[in-house]
């Protein structure tokens, strides 16, 4: 009998176990691969296409997809659709990611106060409850419309309406921990509130925010496209995916690819995010992981 059998298996770190669980989820890995490719394509857009996304070729108007020289066809101004999709990704990713990052920071701050302090927290959470009472997309659109169209307004109004959702996730975590033994211990050790919050509670709140943000990133890509569709996002001739769908609406009967192609781009990116989010959620939650 060798020693290795008797010795207990070395406990693997929680991080390694999570990574392992994620790697075993084939769809999540596929989603990650697609996403990495999409980000690379966005970064390398000028190398991948010879065309300018905003300048059309008057001799190549409404060329259907799979034509030589124009893999995805051209629009009514002769602009190459593949070039517009590639350069459009440079708008689509920041438009989805920046509001979520901003809302995560704001949501962490508000949620920690809301979940940890009993008096101030109650006020903060009641105020945030009001924002849940207004349909999220509608509120964001109204804010963007009032402020005036453009990328910064879209990012700002998305961040405003996402913040309460993230704050709620954080507040729930913080409230659950408020009376946990290790918090009591920290209190008995004489630590001040702010130290307990940022040393003991914050490390538990961050993974919850990361999972929430990732699982919703796909929806954010779609959300951002909605502004473009309504004409509130990046202004023409910027290759905004949502705005491209709206432009294609006018020639839906004669040139259906104009709306179809950017929609497929949105679905691919949003699906990839959704599969990654699912994989991450399962990988970071040991209860769900055991069911695999």
């Amino acid at each position, binding site marked *: 009998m060798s020693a290795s059998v008797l010795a207990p298996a070395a406990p693997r770190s929680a991080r390694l176990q999570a990574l392992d669980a994620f790697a075993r989820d084939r769809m999540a890995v596929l989603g990650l691969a697609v996403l990495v490719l999409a980000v690379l394509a966005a970064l390398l857009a000028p190398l991948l296409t010879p065309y300018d996304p905003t300048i059309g070729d008057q001799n190549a108007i409404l060329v259907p997809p799979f034509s030589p020289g124009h893999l995805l066809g051209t629009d009514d101004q002769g602009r190459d659709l593949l070039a517009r999709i590639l350069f459009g990704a440079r708008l689509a990713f920041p438009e989805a990611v920046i509001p979520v990052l901003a809302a995560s920071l704001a949501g962490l701050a508000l949620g920690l106060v809301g979940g940890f302090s009993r008096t101030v927290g109650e006020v903060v959470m*009641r*105020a945030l*409850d*009001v*924002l849940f*009472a*207004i*349909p*999220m*997309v*509608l*509120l964001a*659109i*109204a*804010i963007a*419309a*009032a*402020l*005036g169209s453009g990328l910064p307004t879209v990012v700002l109004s998305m961040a405003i309406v996402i913040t309460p959702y993230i704050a709620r996730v954080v507040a729930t975590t913080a409230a659950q921990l408020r009376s946990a033994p290790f918090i009591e211990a920290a209190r008995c050790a004489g630590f001040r509130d702010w130290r307990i919050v940022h040393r003991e509670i914050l490390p538990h709140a961050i993974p919850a925010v990361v999972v929430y943000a990732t699982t919703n990133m*796909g929806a954010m890509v*779609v959300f951002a*496209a*909605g502004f473009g*569709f*309504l*004409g*509130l996002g990046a202004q023409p001739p910027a290759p905004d995916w*949502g705005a491209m*769908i*709206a432009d*294609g*609406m006018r020639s*839906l*009967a004669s040139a*259906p690819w104009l*709306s*179809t192609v950017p*929609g497929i781009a*949105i*679905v691919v990116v*949003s*699906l990839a995010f*959704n599969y990654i989010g699912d994989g991450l959620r399962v990988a970071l939650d040991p209860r769900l992981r055991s069911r695999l």
Partner: protein
Amino acid sequence: MLSYAAKRAAAIVPTLIGVSLVTFALLHIVPGGPVVAILGMAASDPKAVAAVTRELGLDRSLPEQYWIWLRHALGGNFGTSTEFHVPVSTLLFPKLAHTLVLTAGSLVYAVLLGLALGIATALYHRSLFDRLAMLLTLIGASAPVFWIGLLLVYLFAIRLQWLPALGMTSLIGPGGVLEVLKHLILPAFANSIISLAVIARIVRSSMLESLVQPYVLAARARGLPRWRQVIVHSFRNVLPDAITITGLQVGFLFGGALFVEVVFGWPGLGYLIYSSIEARDYVTMQAAVLIVSAVFVVVNLAADLARIALDPREVHA
């Protein structure tokens, strides 16, 4: 039960006050402030500016301005549309009815197809049909609803020419109910897709749990037909979950109708909001947002009360 309902109903009052505060603030974040927002092009006319400032107390403190605005709104006075030059209230209420019809139509799709799909995929768990259906619901839930709407228009209205894409004008038009229903088929389906996918997924996972419970095995042992095992014994126990999730979707369907209304030219509040944004008609937009949010709150309350009436255990939980 009744006291709970009363408590739950009373809780919407502070919510509605909060909603009104947020909506009130919308005009104040317009560059140039409320005067520009309310008057539009006419803001260069000092007489008009003086008149609107006096009427709405725009030279007074913010709380006073809010109070004046709220009193007007509660009395049904939402101001005058800068685009259509009529009182906004005359625009709002016919549109509200149209949006509610669209919501009801979407709810029918979401519940019927969602339940059917959820039950069927649970019965054929891990089959090709199950995998395909789950992939389709995920794609449907990951796609922009306006894009799905356009695909439906292209397929059913332009290519097959089975259904009209646009042209819904009024509920009480010459075509009658049948005409409205014909115009409702595509937009209601497009609007329902996300909720349909959510309901199907919840029902599927609940059914999977319920199908292996001892009482289903007992029903099988007694030799009951398969449909009775599934519908009477399993599905009965999925109902609370199904009702809860459906209740949550009602408000979502109502609040999310905006994009679908734009694609299909459905003359509801969403379309009104879209055209008021295009025309920079902030007064109309503000009123429409207020009405949609207020109805959203009430619809969610009604769904919640209905759920509790059907499953009284909730009250004590």
